[in-house]
């Protein structure tokens, strides 16, 4: 990762107390993950031991990732209402759709708790847009053909 970018992010949060999480969020947003060299550099600049930064990163392991995630992020809601409406089945079907013809490296699939859209349960979010199960599958097919 470009150190200049990390510097810009640190600069942006200069006045903020307890800015570590905000900085990590920004790096994750830009790079899609948290590169190790960026964390090392952060440790030097912020005078926070690297072990402590790792502790925060791994504690919040759903928000932060030490490895690149896919280009398209798919979130399958496992909230209570979605569970009642068989979101476990939806998860299996989405996985199957992704695995069809192999090559699902473009996609990052995660289970989340409540996307706040309980009226449409079970819901699936793809790149920030909410879908029901069938339209989600259609969108995946479309995204696969686009790459």
């Amino acid at each position, binding site marked *: 990762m470009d150190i200049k970018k990390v510097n810009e992010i640190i600069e942006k949060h200069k006045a*903020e107390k307890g800015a570590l999480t905000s900085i990590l969020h920004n790096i994750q947003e830009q790079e899609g993950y948290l590169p190790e060299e960026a964390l090392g550099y952060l440790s030097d600049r912020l005078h926070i031991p690297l072990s402590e930064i790792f502790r925060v990163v791994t504690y*919040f392991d759903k928000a932060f990732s030490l490895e690149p995630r896919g280009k398209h992020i798919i979130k399958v809601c496992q909230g209570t209402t979605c*569970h009642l409406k068989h979101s476990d089945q939806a998860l299996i079907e989405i996985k199957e759709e992704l695995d069809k013809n192999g090559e699902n490296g473009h996609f990052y699939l995660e289970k989340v708790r409540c996307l706040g*859209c309980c*009226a*449409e349960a079970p819901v699936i979010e793809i790149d920030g847009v909410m879908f029901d199960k069938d339209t989600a599958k259609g969108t995946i097919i479309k995204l696969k053909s686009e790459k």
Partner: protein
Amino acid sequence: MKVKSIRDLNKLKSEGEKLLRPRKIRIQVGTAPCALSKGAKDVMEKLKEELEHQKVDATIMPVGCIGICYEEPIVEVIAPGKPKLTYGRITTDKVPSLVKAIAKGKALKKNVLYRTSEEDLIINGKTFRYASKTPPEFKKIPTLKEFKFFHPQLRVTLRNAGLINPETIEEYIARGGYAAFHKALTKMTPDKIIEEVIKSGLRGRGGGGFPTGSKWKTCREAKGKGKYVLCNCSEGDPGIGMHKSLIESDPHSILEGLIIGGYAIGAKEGYIYLHYGNSSAKEKLQKSINQANTYGFLGENILNSGFNFSITLKEGAGGYVCGESTALMASLEGRAGEPRPKYIHTAEKGLWDSPTILNNVETWCNVPPIILRGATWYSKIGTKGSKGTKVISLSGNINRSCLVEVPMGTTLKEIINNLGGGVPKGNKLKAIQVGGPPAGVLPAALVDLPIDFDELRKVGSLLGSGGMIIMDDKTCMVDLAKYFITFLEEESCGRCVPCREGVKRMREVLDGISIAIGKEEDLNLLQQLSECLSQASLCDLGKSAPNIVLSTLRHFKEEYQTHIEQQVCPAKRCTM
């Protein structure tokens, strides 16, 4: 322009009124999460296209969530001098005929839900009038007051939700916004504000129902440098969409509450803790904070009162456990979000060891109406021990999922039947979860219970945050307990042994029962583990974790026994 007097505020108010009651047609499209999932964005695009095509001069305005989620996408049309018309299920294919009707000054009869000539402004007791006359062709359309969905409701917290553009501060002011802020800072002392909040009987809407006013008093009296007020916008419960809706529909009501709270306890800084990955709420909140800064509602010497206050938006990184006050504060400080023992209350030693007040979105939104209309007015709403209203997000096996607000004391039955339209045909109501995992479940037989902190606690449940989930007879209680315990196992921070190990063991036992290898002694084991967890865990997450197991065991023990003795899942949900 910095607002310094009531005249300045009134100027913004009339600007807002011009937007809400414009000279040309205004079309409002709901853009809350459930509307977006039903294609509200496409509807807006299509509207724009059709308006151009049919040469109709109108503005399109995104608004928040009006709560009628089952009728999304919802579109409202305000034509000058006419009542506002609210339409349901306006999908893109309906847009051309809707625009045609608008062009002719008529209503699209098939989709119209109700008409509004005037709306009650709960915050100040006045009314907001759209039109004084109703054209004859609109007379057959039911009025807002005749629309049954709103009958059991009283929308105090949701007073502006779905009715204004959340990104325009003037519209918020036009509906009585920031008047309570003005009253508090210019006419009331901090002690008077706290007294008013105590007298109102407001209790924290986040879960525990702790009296808000006395918490504020402790914090005001606590010694410490730089006090803080915090708003918890991090939804942790699986199954509550409402905070997201509230933030996205009416962000200024949160800010107004926070500023009043900050003034009352003597804080200079406020923080809004938002769940990560919620980019549209983040954008709206940040924009609102910027607007409030521009107009001088935040900043130095607010309203010439000598009071300085700023609000910072912080994105959290954690899940369920970060709803716990000390874990939330640790996360705000940039550390791992683990709870600490609470021998000393956060009102005395909280964020960065300073006295801190933490309330959730709904609680903060209740503050402006209490200040403006007074504690006497507020305390008339609700029951003896639970004052005011409660926002409920209703979902599950129900005909109409919706976001509603009812006076405390409304029964579960009224909510399920009158607002939710009952469980789908052919199925029977089996259980209700009122307030997230710590609330456990209630059996259908207790459906006459009221929404009330104390009444629900008496039967071992909790009002919690109000994510109400309805379950029909196809729901397996063992599976449900397993689902929640698996969730809690994932969310346990691992700091204390009872929660880290206990929840895991409970999950293993439940796993066994659900795949037909359960033993008779398992039920005793679950009971023992539950007792251990509720007594020995460090924070409320661990202490309340067994509630789902205990409540299902209490009310549905025979279902567990059938799983164990006959290796059968009566609801056919578990793979035996």
